[in-house]
């Protein structure tokens, strides 16, 4: 079963009396174990697509199917519980709850689902260990660097073993070194743990870490690429530039 199937997705916004078509009929399939990046200029509809895939908002038309289930058929409560179980979310910033420590942040989804404290904390520690953050377990977010904060957020997204991980510009606030370590981690998770990842970014150097990619412009998917074909980040950047210029 495919983790994510998006069909003819349309989403419009009202902006000062003007109608904006953020997504104008998008089709996308993400296979299990895949790592897909979505590239596009600012305002092209990337985040909107991701939010729809996470069921955080509803489309004007079209369908989102996650793990074989049509999100449109669920009510808010079902959607929340479904998200808790099947989707891991990572955002650009402000991912963590500032009053909780790193390990408590990681444990939170399981605790919200009613997991026993001892069990859950053990899993969360193991997760941080894997992410190389064991030393940081008891620190509050304010004491962590941006890269560490993002890695904790990834850990939190992974802790429920979700069907699909959605990341919206996870490296947007990081310097290049931290950015690389986050990308490496995501790629690693995909290769060794079979995680399925859909990542939004506008940086070719980040998109190059994915296995596949789509270009999005004005709410349309305008191009698709495969990392095995595009062999370097520089080449990807080139293609991206060309795409931007032809539009």
């Amino acid at each position, binding site marked *: 079963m495919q983790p994510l199937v998006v069909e003819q997705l349309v989403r419009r916004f009202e902006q000062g009396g003007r109608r904006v078509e953020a997504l104008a009929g998008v089709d996308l399939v993400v296979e299990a174990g895949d790592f897909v990046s979505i590239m596009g200029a600012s305002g092209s509809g990337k985040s909107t697509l991701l939010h729809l895939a996470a069921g955080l908002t509803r489309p004007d038309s079209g369908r989102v199917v996650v793990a074989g289930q049509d999100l449109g058929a669920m009510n808010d*409560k079902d959607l929340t519980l479904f*998200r808790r179980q099947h989707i891991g979310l990572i955002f650009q910033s*402000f991912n963590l*709850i500032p*009053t909780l420590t790193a390990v408590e942040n990681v444990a939170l989804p399981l605790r*919200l*689902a009613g997991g026993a404290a001892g069990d859950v904390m053990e899993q969360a520690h193991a997760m941080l260990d894997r992410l190389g953050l064991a030393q940081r377990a008891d620190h509050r977010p304010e004491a962590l660097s941006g890269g560490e904060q993002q890695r904790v957020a990834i850990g939190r997204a992974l802790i429920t073993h979700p069907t699909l991980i959605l990341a919206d510009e996870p490296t947007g606030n990081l310097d290049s070194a931290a950015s690389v370590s986050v990308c490496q981690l995501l790629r690693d998770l995909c290769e060794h743990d079979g995680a399925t990842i859909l990542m939004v970014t506008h940086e070719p150097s980040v998109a190059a870490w994915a296995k596949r990619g789509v270009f999005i412009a004005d709410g349309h998917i305008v191009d698709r690429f495969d990392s095995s074909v595009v062999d370097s980040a520089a080449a990807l950047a080139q293609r991206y530039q060309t795409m931007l210029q032809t539009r």
Partner: protein
Amino acid sequence: MAVAHLLNRHLRHHRTRAALTIAAIMVAVSLVVALTTSFASLRGAAYDVLGTMYGSTDLQISPDQQRGTMIDEATVAALRKDDRVRHVDARRVATSSLLDADDKAVHWRPSSIIGIEAENISQASVDALIGGQWFDQSGGEVAVIEEKIAEKLKIGVGDSLGLPSPTGTLRLKVVGVLGRPDMLHFEAPAVYLPIATLQRWLGEADTYSEVKLDLVDSADADAMAAEIQQRVGPGVYQIETAASRQRNFERNFAGLTVLSYLGGTLSMIAAVFIVFSALTMGVTERSRSLGMLRAIGATRGQIATLVIGEGVALAVIGAAMGVPLGVGWVMLLNWMYPRLFSAGVVFSFGGAVYGAAGTITAALAASLLPAWVASRSDVLDALTVTSRPRKGRSTMWCGIAGVVLIALDPLLVFTPGIGRELRMDAHLFIGLPALLIGLVGIAPLLVIAADRLFSSAVARVMKLEPTLLRQQLSGGLWRTVGTAAGLMVGLLALVVLQTHGRSMATGWSMPAKFPDMLMVAPMGLDQQQIDTMQTLEQIRPPGVLAMAMVTPQFATNIFGLGGMMKMPEGTMLFGMDTDRAFGDGSEDAEPMIELQYIEGDPATARKLLKQGHHVIVSEHYTRVKGMGVGDVIKLNTPLSGEVGYTIAGVVRSVGIDMVVRLFEMRREFDRFTAAGAITTLEDVQRDFGTQRIYLMCANVDASVNKRQFERRLRDKLRTWGVLAADARKIKRGVDTALGGLLDLISTIALAAIGVAALGVTNTIIASVRSRRWQMGVLRSLGLTRGALMRLILAEAVMIGAVASVLGIGGGLLLSLDANHLSIEIIGYVVPLTIPWGVLAMGVGLTLGVAMLAALRPAIGAARSDTLSLLQAGRASE
């Protein structure tokens, strides 16, 4: 579980806020507990006193006050023989002034002179001795006096005191001194002596004025009371059973109990508003965290539980600390005034439950709106870096709903055709809460208006750049609303108490014209003594106006209202010589009393009164009974049975009734009489059999002073216990006393303002916190520390200003309603007097308290260095 964990972390993270909110709840609950416990303790003390006074008395017989006929020996002897009676305690009680050891008259209030049989001295009375001992014979010139008398007369055991009388002074040797509980402070001090000695001094052997019966267990007190009534005829004796005494006592305390609960409620409401605003702050500040929680799978229910849990947790902790604190306050009071609670501190369990459970429930209710808002928090809104505040439409609707709710109370109060009881209930249970909620409803609009209107004025006063103050309050709209509402409660109560109270105080007025001197004889005078009085040379023509007083029972009991809103059971009927009082219609006869007529006119009323069976009533009647001139009031009279009195005139206030209460002329503290009616002396004597006169008035020479006059009066009459008082001074005295009482009650309102101050501190801390970065920028641009501090204080001042507008506006509206209602309840038509000075002080206090509460956070922010301000907000919620 996860929710509990998050809650715990959140509270720890905002320790100061949690502590201040808990403190507010704690103080509020402690006030409820302290007030109710103090009151329960006072009630216990009163019961104690009552216990000593009545012991195991099942039935108490006393002569009807108006007629002054005593209980004779035959009646007492018959009772002593009755097998249903286990014990008879027959007493004679008189009132007299006292002479000291040197035979000098002591100018003081008259004392109760109580003659008892030695065998009836109870163990409690023995225990109350603080010196000497009780007499053990039924005759002899000995006395046991109360401590107060010992102090006043500067005498002790072994000394003597005198009782003056026309037949010569009776000298008594003091054998014992009694302590007395503070509870009886207002009762006349007492001298106890053997009953035979008192009877001999009075020249009335074998008469009694009080008989207490202790019945055997199988006896039926009610049946026996009925039997005695039947034997002697109706209205000759007043017979009270233990059950009815208990009932009267309880009924009088019921209203006060309600008040003791209401007092603390005020602070509770203020505290709950603080909970509301603390929760609102938490929700606003955490919008990002809450959104994130939703994104990773927290349900709306879990988010709502988090907020409600916070409200309840704060309330539970506050209440748990408030109850012991309240008991602590009472202990402190008890330690400072050890004789106040003579029966010890009686913990009011009901008060504690009310305070704790009430606060927790109210906090729960207050958390519903923030919880709902939090659970609605949109994930995407929270994730966008700059979330736009949404207002406008909802504020508008709130305001409209607020106005509607506010209008409800005046509507309920002023709409004609609503029944009295229904109107009262509707006002208390619908109008009043609606008004409070309505004020909160219009608060957001007011806050926005304050931002526009006050900010430039405040900026000017505080020497700040006006643009810096723009949007200061509306940035955190709901937390400001909650805080201002909390602050409003106390001010509102202050306004109502002071406006309504002072209106009531000044509303009671003497008749438009009234004689200079009032004379009161607690024992009553007979006609011969009145005639003697007329010969006193200082009294100007037409002489002394004697007034006979009775308290008739109404034929129909329409006054059966419970609790504190109850109507007076009876109304005082004053019988007087109408020619003398109102003139006989001839040119040169100047009336002594001029009343302010609302219906009818003096001339007609006078003529009608002279025909007999007519009365002049206060406006009270027309309101309460829907009667007017020409209508007939049916009265139960002891001698003529049910008699109809036709209303001859309606006046604003008879005015004399207040005097009577002031002089404690009725010793039963279980009967209220609130209104007066005037008829002729003949009517009262014929229908009520009144012989003795207790109240007189006269015009006296301008040069006469009250003391001299009183002395002359006593000398002339050679009698005991006649008091004279300047009528104008009485009025002033009443005003002062009521004013003092009002100020005392108003401290409760001040306490509520104090509690609300904690909320202001919370708000200012939150406001500073959310703007640290912005403040850093301002400082780096050259804003001085002082200016920054003033900027923060300005916000507090503006919150105070909003609270003031709400409090004064709401308070005046409520006063207007209360004023209108009071006409129905107490019968006075009082013109509304607004004490602007006090209100201005209230506003000043509110603003001052708000500013004081903001001082610490303001100084804190001003002191922190610019860089740390700039770096703030790195891990924002």
